[in-house]
């Protein structure tokens, strides 16, 4: 199973990346999640993506809310500052961090409980503001840490282990994000590491909020017959929209494709996402089509994965703030405290 990957030796990987670090430098503490948890598989791909991209760990901040998924930032990038915040409020913390230091690359890990219920408001507003960050929802349709209650992303008619049937429609976080003009929206599956790692790398190149809704099965409470968030269900029903590959800005595009079979999306930093067409002719730059495709997939019970929507032109939050280049956190007193003459001028105006 995929979930044991993080514990396997990675002997086939190159010894060091382009900044001279080993993959071990991108690891964190040992996971305390259940054996086989989808979240551990996502963690492994985060480690792989950041290692392969050669991102300096100290430039990264890891943030989360509360829940099983929110524990995972402790399990990767031990050399990056981490912030395990309160339930559903990770987006506001990330927004504050982005203002204080726009040079940091922020990775937020949340779950379906943390984002789709208590944190839905903050999720909407971080997307609306386009705060630069990778926002990963490890979506398993249940509350794991409180022992298996339905979450708001559970599909209509899906069954709990106890036999309880969900009679409320799910909140589709990708559909909601697109509706809110999110500039990067993808859905993936913890059991599809190849696609996931490409999407993670692409989201690291994106300047804005990248929402990655990753179906990440809960082996303890939601991996049974009747669940629509189980490994088996997802494997059987996954329909990739395209075959994804990511070419970082520091590498040449070497693969040749037949004309018309691949859509090349150039990212902010000069990297490329190559989307090889499969059965569906899907254009992720068409917002209305993206929404329609998702609606149709819901109606037909399909589990579509891939890059659902991308808009590289939408200005991000910190760019709109028109901040000085030096992070606000580091500005010296001489810059942030106006001189006495300014106070005198203000006082004169109040006399």
């Amino acid at each position, binding site marked *: 199973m995929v979930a044991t990957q993080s514990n396997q030796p990675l002997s086939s990987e190159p010894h060091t990346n382009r900044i001279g670090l080993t993959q071990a430098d991108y690891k964190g*503490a040992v996971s305390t999640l259940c054996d086989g948890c989808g979240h551990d598989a996502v963690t492994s791909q985060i480690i792989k993506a950041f290692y392969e991209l050669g991102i*300096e*760990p*100290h*430039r990264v*901040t890891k*943030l989360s809310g509360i829940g099983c998924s929110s524990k995972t*930032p*402790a399990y990767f990038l*031990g*050399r*990056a*500052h*981490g*912030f*395990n*915040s*309160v339930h559903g*409020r990770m*987006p*506001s*913390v*990330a*927004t*504050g*961090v982005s*203002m*204080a*230091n726009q*040079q*940091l690359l922020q990775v937020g890990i949340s779950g379906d409980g943390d984002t789709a219920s208590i944190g839905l*408001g*903050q999720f*909407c*507003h971080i997307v609306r*503001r386009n705060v630069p960050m990778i926002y990963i929802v490890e979506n398993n349709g249940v509350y794991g840490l409180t022992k298996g209650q339905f979450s708001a992303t559970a599909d209509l008619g899906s069954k709990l282990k106890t036999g309880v049937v969900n009679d409320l429609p799910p909140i589709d976080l990708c559909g909601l994000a697109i509706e809110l003009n999110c500039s990067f929206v993808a859905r993936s599956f913890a059991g599809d590491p190849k696609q996931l790692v490409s999407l993670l790398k692409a989201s690291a190149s994106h300047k804005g909020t990248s929402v990655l809704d990753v179906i990440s099965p809960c082996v303890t409470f939601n991996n049974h017959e009747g669940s629509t968030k189980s490994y088996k269900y997802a494997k059987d029903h996954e329909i990739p929209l395209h075959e994804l590959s990511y070419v970082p800005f520091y590498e040449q595009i070497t693969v040749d494709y037949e004309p018309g079979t691949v859509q090349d999306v150039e990212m902010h930093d000069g990297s490329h996402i190559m989307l090889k067409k499969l059965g569906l002719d899907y254009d992720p730059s068409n917002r209305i089509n993206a929404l329609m495709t998702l609606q149709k997939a819901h109606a037909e019970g399909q589990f579509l994965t891939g890059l659902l929507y991308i808009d590289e032109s939408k200005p991000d939050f*910190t760019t709109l*703030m*028109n*901040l*000085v*280049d030096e*992070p*606000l*956190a*580091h*500005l010296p*007193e001489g*810059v*942030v*405290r*106006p001189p*006495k003459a*300014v*106070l005198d001028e*203000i*006082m004169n105006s*109040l*006399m």
Partner: protein
Amino acid sequence: MKTLAQDSAQKVDKGRVINDFSIQVATVNGSGSQSSNSVLMRSIFQMGIPVSGKNLFPSNIAGLPTWFTIRINKDGWVARAEQVDILVAINPQTAHDDVKSLTAGAVCISPIDLKLDAVRSDITHYQVPFSELAAEATDQVKLRKLLTNMIYVGVIAELLGIDQNEIETSIRRQFEGKGKAIDLNLVAASKGQQWAKANLKKDDCFYVERMNKTSGKIIIDGNEAAALGCLFAGATVVCWYPITPSSSLCETLIEYLKKYRIDKKTGKATFAVVQAEDELAAIGMALGAGWAGARSFTSTSGPGISLMAEFTGYGYFTEIPTVIFDVQRVGPSTGLPTRTSQADLLSTYCLSHGDTKHIILLPGTVEECYSLAVQAFDLAERFQTPVFVLSDLDLGMNHWMADRLPYPDKPIDRGKVLTAQDLERLGKFERYHDVDGDGICYRTTPGTNHPLAAYFTRGSGHNEKAQYSERPEDYENLMKRLDRKYQTARKYVPKPELDIDRQARVGIIAYGSSHCAILESRSQLRNAKLPVSYLRIKALPFTEELRQFVERLDRIYVVEQNRDAQLRDLIRLELPEHAMKLQSICHFSGLPISARFVTDAILGEEG
């Protein structure tokens, strides 16, 4: 009533009351009277006479009654005066009640068509044809209502003897840059003045006379003063959500930031402001920014404080600096959103679940809204914790005469932050290790380029290395150290202001906006041959001065503007051996406390 009459008797000098009375203007919310009232207040201020202005307004945009009271006092007393001497009764909705509430001998200026002389005959009436005068001032019907406000300013100026040049200066200042408005208002004020001169016979005893008690002073409200504190504290990240009565703090700051904190060469901002989606997010953003090393803050009022409880506990437990302004209004719940209160003290002191104690600063003047705002940022970063500044609607939104605000005399204190060079030199870093024994640990900020720099901030139990821990001794050690840090804060927070009367056996303890009423009350008590000592608390945790003050006196009245004697109870917890010495005087009507209320309460006990 007996005491009010006593106050009145002291004011009269050979049949004239000079520079010691109050004017109340009763109008309709949204009718534009605020500008006129500012002009009136400022004109008197410019004549060197101490003034204060209090706006009693409804939670409403337009249509409900509003009252603006200007107190003119030659001795500089600026607390709310209970007695109205001159009423301007423009609002027909309330005119009858307003007139009925006057004491005999008061003055009422009103539109002639309201026929208020039929309601009371024991007061002096000046009935003015406002509509006619407004029609003469402009042919634009829309503007007539607005101009009525400036006409009453002209009438009052003529009756009281306010210098016409000062009215003109104030109008030019009020409408700066709006030439048309200046012209129209000058005409309106002049219409009122000319009409009063030609038609009214002075039949009251109230006069203003030029003094020199306001030179070098400014007029400011506490929110603007606090905003200036944030500006000069070097705040860089502002996260707020609009709520009365705190909104103007951030709104004023934004104007100043745009003017003074844009890099001249690049045109780029040295600040970030975000209007959050709610208070839950505002405090989250402030903590995120504080964690990442910026000087951040948020500003709110009671309902916002309640919403911020969870994150505040997080900030306390994980030790993240930020500043939270609470411009208090009347609670609980929505309460009276446009009235003043000091009832958030206790809930803010231990805001959040679990054992929490916060550093709280308590400005008692607009000058302190500024200076304690500056200090709050230093304390937050020194102690790596959320620091509260509790002001209130009376301080925050009313107009106060003040000394010019002084430039900060200390450099900014960023607290114990380790750089990559520090880490290299030390060779070791544990986020929650109390290296110095003062309870304050060293921190790093994200982005610090050193393999030792990173740590994991978590609201769950953690050990000195910031690792997850449920071990009983780790939790106990952490909580004890947080308490040690709080004890250290006693030496850093602003000390109380003390005024000891050597003869006094009785004392007053107060804080915040009650200060002006206490000053005046002590003068009244002195006249009643009751000397009292005074200690004004400026911060929590308490400092040693409190104990010394309480020990030396027989009885202490703790005066505050809430129902439950919140400060008195906190002092009792601090000094249980003196609990019975501490009595309580509580004012909680939503109106600012008056000196007379305090004096009467103390004389009732001591007399």
